[in-house]
């Protein structure tokens, strides 16, 4: 039997209610009552101007994430197409890949300063990997019969990529983009924790340093809401782009 979608949120609702009830009489500095957090959230983020911090962060995200996605797909496709170069480059790629971008942050700050270019660079450098590697993997996994079919139809290399390779690798590319999205959100915040004067990461860190715990929690909740919204948006896009794939898979599973 199919349960209406809204009821699947029962656990989430329970957690919220428990949080609300159990924190109601809290006097702990670190865990203020949820009611207080929400009141302040309203005052700061909806009435007040803390939103500015969010817009500043999202601005960097809005440039960094698409750039990471496009570069990831582009470089992945090039490494697939020129596989001799690809094989030579791969070890270097994996070597760079295992360096946590957070560890590179001091170096990037040293070179680029603490402005927007640095933050965008950090997002791109960290978020590019899942998309790049998944693109490469997905394209390498294209059925050779598909490529023969393209050849038999006399498709040009560009058309082959557009009509056969890219759509064929799309399920994996989308999985990569989704992972990249999470990383981009994380790096958006991390880039604001170092020598920064703006952004939601800065807001959270600064509140904590002022010992304004309730304010800090509002920042964290806003971040969680934004992250969820981005994920849901992504899933909606994915359902559109991969409608054929999801449909075909459902048919396959039914047998």
């Amino acid at each position, binding site marked *: 039997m199919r349960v209406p979608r809204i009821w699947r949120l029962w656990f989430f609702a329970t957690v919220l209610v428990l949080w609300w009830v159990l924190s109601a009489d809290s006097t702990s500095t670190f865990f203020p009552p949820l009611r207080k957090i929400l009141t302040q959230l309203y005052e700061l983020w909806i009435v007040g101007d803390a939103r500015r911090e969010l817009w500043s962060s999202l601005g960097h995200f809005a440039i960094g994430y698409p750039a990471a996605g496009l570069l990831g797909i582009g470089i992945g496709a090039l490494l697939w197409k020129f596989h001799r170069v690809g094989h030579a480059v791969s070890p270097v790629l994996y070597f760079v890949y295992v360096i946590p971008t957070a560890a590179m942050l001091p170096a990037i700050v040293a070179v680029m300063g603490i402005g927007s270019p640095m933050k965008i660079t950090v997002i791109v450098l960290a978020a590019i990997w899942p998309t790049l590697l998944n693109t490469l993997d997905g394209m390498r996994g294209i059925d050779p019969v*598909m490529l*023969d079919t393209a*050849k*038999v139809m006399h498709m040009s290399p560009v058309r082959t990529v557009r009509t056969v390779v890219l759509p064929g690798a*799309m399920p994996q590319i989308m999985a990569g983009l989704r992972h990249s999205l999470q990383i981009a959100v994380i790096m958006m915040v991390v880039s604001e924790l170092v020598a920064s004067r703006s952004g939601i990461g800065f807001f959270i860190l600064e509140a904590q340093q002022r010992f304004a715990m309730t304010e800090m929690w509002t920042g964290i909740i806003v971040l969680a809401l934004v992250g969820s919204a981005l994920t849901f948006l992504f899933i909606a896009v994915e359902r559109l782009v991969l409608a*054929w*794939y999801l449909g*075909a898979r459902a*048919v396959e599973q039914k047998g």
Partner: protein
Amino acid sequence: MSPVSQSEVIHGRPPGPSGEPVLSVRALAKTYNAGQRTERPAIADVSFDVAKGEFVCVVGPSGCGKTTLLRCLSGLLGPTSGEVRFEGTPLQAVPDRLSVVFQDYSRSLFPWLSVHRNVAVPLKVAGVPKQQRETRIREVLDAVGLDDVGRSYPWQLSGGMQQRVAIARALAHRPDMLLMDEPFASVDAQTRFDLEDLILQVRRELGITVVLVTHDIDEAVYLADRVVVLGRAPSRVKEIVDVPLEHPRTQLGTRSSDAFGRLRGHLMELVTSA
């Protein structure tokens, strides 16, 4: 179709000495990894001609290099030695006037495109203008008995219908020759009969030349004007057998005739004695 070729088809002989063969295979040999330790000869020596409008089946025991041969005939794979000529010119790449239907439709149809758009792909590649494209798509879908599934995706259709789409797509840009690699191997028996009759009908209506590779002897006899029998790998031509069964053929009538039985027996002997 001209009356001349009609009578020739009825007598089951290769139509006319007139003009060059559409496909001419001369001393074709293919060795994988030639010169290396992993060297594996797949085709030793294959020669045969296919005349215009003829239906030729290639049979052989499994693993005899049939698919390798088909890839060489289509220009997807270069031979180690020997030559394949299509309409007089030696093959460099896949020739324009040739189409290929692969065995596994699910690996060759594009699952992200609707049936209509799958069939449109070769026409778009050939630069056929939109209006003409639409007419052609309707024609070929109609020719394979699919006129109302254009908006469906291939995976929403049965196996037999999917292979029909693949055939329609192969016919869309009006090729002179159709190469088929065990095209009916992944469908059930009844569908297989339907598709065999379909391809005979398409061939009759469009006057197209067909080369079909199969391991099924009955199928080869039922479809072909001539059958090229290959031996075990590395394959050589064991014999080229004429199939003088009359047209139009019917699953019940043709298959139960004495002539069919004799041809089948002869081919079976050739293939199993490999």
